[in-house]
C-alpha cells in the first residue's frame, strides 16, 4: 500500500461519526405509490370523469395511451428509486425498459388519435388555454410523489442526479396525465395528443427543471450540515 493511500484511509477513519442510513427502497416505493394514487383519486373526484370514461368503454386508442402512460410512470419511478442507491442495476435497467416500452405505446396511441383526423374527427388547435390547464393539472398530480422521490434522491447517492430526478419527474407526470385524460372533456385530437398523451414530454420537462433546483438546494444544505 502506498503511503498516501494509507494516510487517506487513516484520515477517513479518524473521528468517524455515525450516519443515518437511507430508508429501504420498498418503503419509499410504497409511500410514493400511495401518495400518487391518493393525489390521482382526489383529482378524479374533484374534476369528475368525462363522457368517454363514464361508461368505462372507451375506444382501444385510449387504452393504448393509458397503458403507455402507466408503463412509462412505473418505469420512471423504478429507475429513479434504483438509481438513488448504488447496487440496483437490474431495477434501473427494468425501469428504463418499461419507460421505453411506455414511450412506444404512447407514440402508437398518439398515431391512432392523429389517424382519426383524416376520418373527420375535429383536429382543433395545437395550442389553447385548455392545454395549459391540462398540462398544469398533470404536473399538479405529479408534484407530491415526484417531490418525495427528489427528497429521497437528495438523501441517497445517485451517480447522475439530474437523470435520477428526471426519471422520477417524467414518470410521475405521465401518471398525472391519467386523471387528466379521464376527466378532460375536450374532443380536439391535437389537444388530447399534446396535452394528455405527450404530457411527460411537455409538462414533464418544466417540472424536471423545478425539481432539479429543489434537489440542488437540498443537496447543498445536506453538504453544509
Amino acid at each position, binding site marked *: 500500500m502506498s503511503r*498516501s*493511500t494509507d*494516510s487517506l*484511509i487513516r484520515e*477517513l477513519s479518524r473521528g*468517524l461519526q455515525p450516519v443515518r*442510513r437511507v430508508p*429501504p427502497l420498498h418503503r419509499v416505493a410504497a409511500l410514493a405509490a400511495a401518495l400518487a394514487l391518493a393525489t390521482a383519486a382526489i383529482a378524479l373526484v374533484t374534476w369528475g370523469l368525462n363522457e368517454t370514461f363514464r361508461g368505462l368503454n372507451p375506444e382501444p386508442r385510449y387504452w393504448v395511451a393509458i397503458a403507455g402512460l402507466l408503463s412509462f410512470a412505473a418505469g420512471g419511478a423504478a429507475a429513479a428509486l434504483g438509481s438513488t442507491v448504488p*447496487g440496483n442495476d437490474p431495477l434501473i435497467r427494468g425501469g428504463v425498459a418499461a419507460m421505453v416500452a411506455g414511450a412506444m405505446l404512447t407514440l402508437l396511441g398518439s398515431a391512432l388519435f392523429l389517424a382519426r383526423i383524416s376520418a373527420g374527427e375535429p383536429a382543433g388547435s395545437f395550442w389553447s388555454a385548455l392545454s395549459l390547464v391540462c398540462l398544469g393539472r398533470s404536473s399538479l398530480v405529479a408534484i407530491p410523489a415526484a417531490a418525495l422521490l427528489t427528497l429521497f434522491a437528495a438523501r441517497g*447517492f445517485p451517480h447522475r442526479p439530474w437523470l435520477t430526478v428526471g426519471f422520477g419527474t417524467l414518470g410521475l407526470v405521465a401518471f398525472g396525465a391519467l386523471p387528466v385524460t379521464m376527466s378532460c372533456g375536450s374532443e380536439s385530437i391535437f389537444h388530447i395528443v399534446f396535452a394528455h398523451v405527450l404530457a411527460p414530454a411537455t409538462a414533464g420537462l418544466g417540472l424536471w427543471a423545478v425539481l432539479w433546483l429543489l434537489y440542488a438546494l437540498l443537496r447543498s444544505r445536506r453538504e453544509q450540515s
Partner: protein
Amino acid sequence: MSEERDERRAREGRWSELMAAGQDGDAPAYEQLLRELLIPLRAFAMSRLGDPASVDDVVQNVLLSIHRARHSYRPERPFGPWLWTIARNAVTDSLRARSTRLRRELPIDELEGIDEPSVEQQPQLALSPALRAALDGLPPAQRQAVELMHVHQLSVAEAAERAGVSPGALKVRAHRGYKALRVALADEKP
C-alpha cells in the same frame, strides 16, 4: 466453483458487518474494511485502466466515494453490488476527468522556454477580511489545501503535487477545510 462462491459470500458478509459497524461510528472496523477492500479495488481499477501509474489515484477516488456513500448502504442488502457500482462509477468519473485533462494539456514541446510561475505569481482571488481570518484559523494542512485550490485556483492534481500528497488526501483536507470555514463564517453572522 461453489467453494469460490461461498468464499466470496463469506467475504462480502464480513464486509457488510464491518460497514454496518462503520455506519454506527466504529472507526477501527471501518478502517479494517477500507484496508480489506484495497486489494480487490486495485485489481478492479487495474482491469479497467490498464495503467499501473494511475491505479493509486483512482483507488483513492473510489475510497472517497465509498466514504461519501456509506450512509446509502443497508446491511440487509448484499454488499457486493453496492460496492462495485460505486467502484465502477468512480472509475468512470476518473477516466472521464483524465481524458478531459489530457485534452486541455499542451504537449511538452510547446511549453519549452516558458518558466513555471511560482504559487505567489499565479492569479489569486481577493478575499474578504472575514474569510481571510477564518482561513487563518484553519489547521495548516487544511488551510494549504483550500488556498492552493481556491485562492490560487490550481487543479486538484497541481495542488496535490505542490502539497506533496495524493489528490485523494488533498480533496479530504480541502473538504474538511470548507466545512470548518462554513461553520466559522456562519458563527460570524449576526
